[in-house]
């Protein structure tokens, strides 16, 4: 990351319907090393609207990383994944599938739909926290995230070539 960009907090979008799970994740992310903004939507439809900055999400910032649950009402995670990866603008956003399912079929399908990785949520709290830490370690520190087109409101004063 450029020094300039490291100043900006990482935008994370969590797509998760279960409130309890959301809370947990929020708790974990709060203690993260890297500064981050965690936005939350509760189902797939909202997720797409957020990503496309439709209606109430007009001022939403484009996420640098997507944390996607699979089991959701209306539109489940796989569908969201498919739609995101079809969209030219959105497909560059790395998607981490974070779900309780261990099913081979879910794993396979997710990767077929070009999920960037698939993580099973551990039952145990300490383990869950460890996983989240690992996610942020990996995705936010080690991995280089693409810089996508930004909204006018976020345009930095200086742009390095």
């Amino acid at each position, binding site marked *: 990351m450029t020094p300039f960009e490291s100043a900006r907090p990482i935008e994370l979008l969590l797509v998760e319907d279960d409130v*309890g799970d959301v809370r947990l994740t929020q708790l974990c992310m709060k203690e993260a090393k890297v500064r981050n903004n965690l936005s939350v939507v509760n189902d797939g439809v909202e997720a797409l609207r957020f990503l496309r900055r439709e209606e109430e999400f007009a001022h939403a910032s484009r996420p640098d990383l997507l944390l996607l649950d699979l089991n959701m009402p209306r539109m489940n995670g796989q569908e969201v994944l498919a739609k995101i990866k079809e969209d030219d603008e959105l497909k560059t956003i790395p998607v981490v599938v974070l779900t309780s399912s261990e099913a081979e079929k879910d794993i396979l399908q997710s990767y077929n739909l070009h999920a960037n990785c698939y993580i099973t949520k551990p039952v145990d*709290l300490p383990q*869950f926290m460890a996983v989240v830490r690992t996610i942020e370690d990996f995705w936010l520190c080690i991995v280089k995230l693409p810089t996508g087109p930004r909204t006018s409101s976020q345009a930095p004063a200086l742009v390095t070539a």
Partner: protein
Amino acid sequence: MKRNTAGTHDFALGAFTSCLLLLALVAGISIWSDLRSYDELRWIRQAYQVKGQIAGSLSIMQDAVINARSFVITGRKKDLEHYQSSRARIEPNLDALSALTSDNPQQGLRIEQLRSRSLENIAVLQRAIQARGAGDFLGAIRVLSAFNWSESIDECRAIMAQMDAGEDVLLKKGEAAALAGARITTVTLVGGVGLIVVSGCMAIVRINRDCRARKIAEESIRVAHRQLAEQADVLDSVLRSVGDGVVVADANGKFISWNPAASRIIGQGPADVTLDQWTETYGVYLADRVTPCPAEREPLALAMRGECVDGEILYLKSEHLPKGRWISVTGRPLTSKTGEIRGGTVVMNDITERMATQTALQKARDELEARIQERTFDLARSNQQLEQFAYVASHDLQQPLRMITSYVQLLAEHLKDRLDADSKEFIGYVVDGTAWMKRLINDLLSYSRIGSHGKPFEPTDCERVFHEAFQMLDAAIHDSGAKVTHDPLPTVMGDETHLVQLFQNLIENAIKYHGETPPAVHVGAERRGGEWIISVCDNGIGIDPQYADRIFLVFQRLHGKEQFSGTGIGLAICKKVVEGHGGRIWVESHPGQGSTFYFTMPYVEVPNDDTVRIRETDRALVGGGRRR
């Protein structure tokens, strides 16, 4: 025999003909010979006559002389008459003699000589007699004495003797001839008769033999006739009594036999119709019951053409058989010994009942099949639902479980200063409970996944399976110091993942449930008949035989969680995998004596190149009706 009798006939004919000819010949020769003899006899008789005449001549002469002398002496008139009668006889006698020997000139000469002598003698006598008649006795005596009577008589005698001799010669000749003739006749007769007799005998013998032979032949013909008649009777009664219809037709299609059963089966007797009208007349249809049987397919027609028909099924329906009848027809040509076809014969078996039974059977079978299909489908469906349920349940239970675990732990974190030891202990139990539940759910998920989205069976090398399982258990083996050995393992048809799971579970158990001594595990493989028997043998704590069945049930354990880890799903999974592969699993063990787990895998001759895939439906059958 025929040739012999003909020969005999000719022979007899020949024999008789030759006999007749011989007879004729014999007769002819005899007659000729006899005729010749008659001739000779005539000459002989004549000779005797001559001889007699000659003798008579002499006596007449002598009579005349004596009578003349007597007269001379006596001078009696009587003597003179005697002399005159004698003298009168002399000439005729000589004439007669002459006549008798007219064919013999020699004798004629002699007769003339006699005649002259006689004349001489007579002349003398005449003189004497004249003299005496005149009374000159002495003169007569002188005349008589002057003549040399003895000489004259001797001369006459000599001549007569000559003549006699001459006649004798003739006689002899004649007799010889007659004798010869008789001999010829005799020989001819004897010979001829002999030949006749011989040939007659031969003919008789031959004829006799022939007659006897003929009698024997006739007898055997009679016997054969009788047997034939008996056979015909038997055949007739057989045809009458059999239940199958028998129809025989000659080469022209005319019926020469039609037994009562045929009439019953066909519903009518033989009709005077040509071959191409049979189908119409008797109502013959093909097995579909609607197509009339084409004339060239009629079994009898085929048989008449030399073809064999076996079990051809036809349907009869006509005004005589309104309800219709199923028949099974077998036909064969009738061939003579020389191989030419003389007609055909068919046997009809009424199979109406059999067809009805078959139809009913087929219907029942179809029904059964349909019901089986239905039930299989239901079973498959319910299985599928069950597995789906298990899957979904396990899946959906994960989430709330996570919530419980996580928030209880969160709570513990938040309240950790305000909680006393008991509370902390209680929370511990909650967390343990959820952890255990998680394990159970996971195990249940694994269990339900066996047989759900399994791949089609492929040839799987168990050596490789073993090594994979071995590697998965690397840690456990290392920690327990276990020694794991194995026999050469076969290749079987199966799902590799599940087989790895199977081996892994069994070996893991073998290692886990050890006693004091470090575990020693041996995996063996033995082929018995159509299957492989694979064994996992350990020196662990053993199993009480009364629990040998229970341990294969889901979540069944024989020990507490503290003693040995595990949820008790391992063996249930093993059993499901084994049974899914068409085998069976069991254990042989005693407490303290280690355990040997056995499972079977069907032996399959596995081709090297192609992979053989079993369709999932078949796999379901192999697995005993599990869902696809």
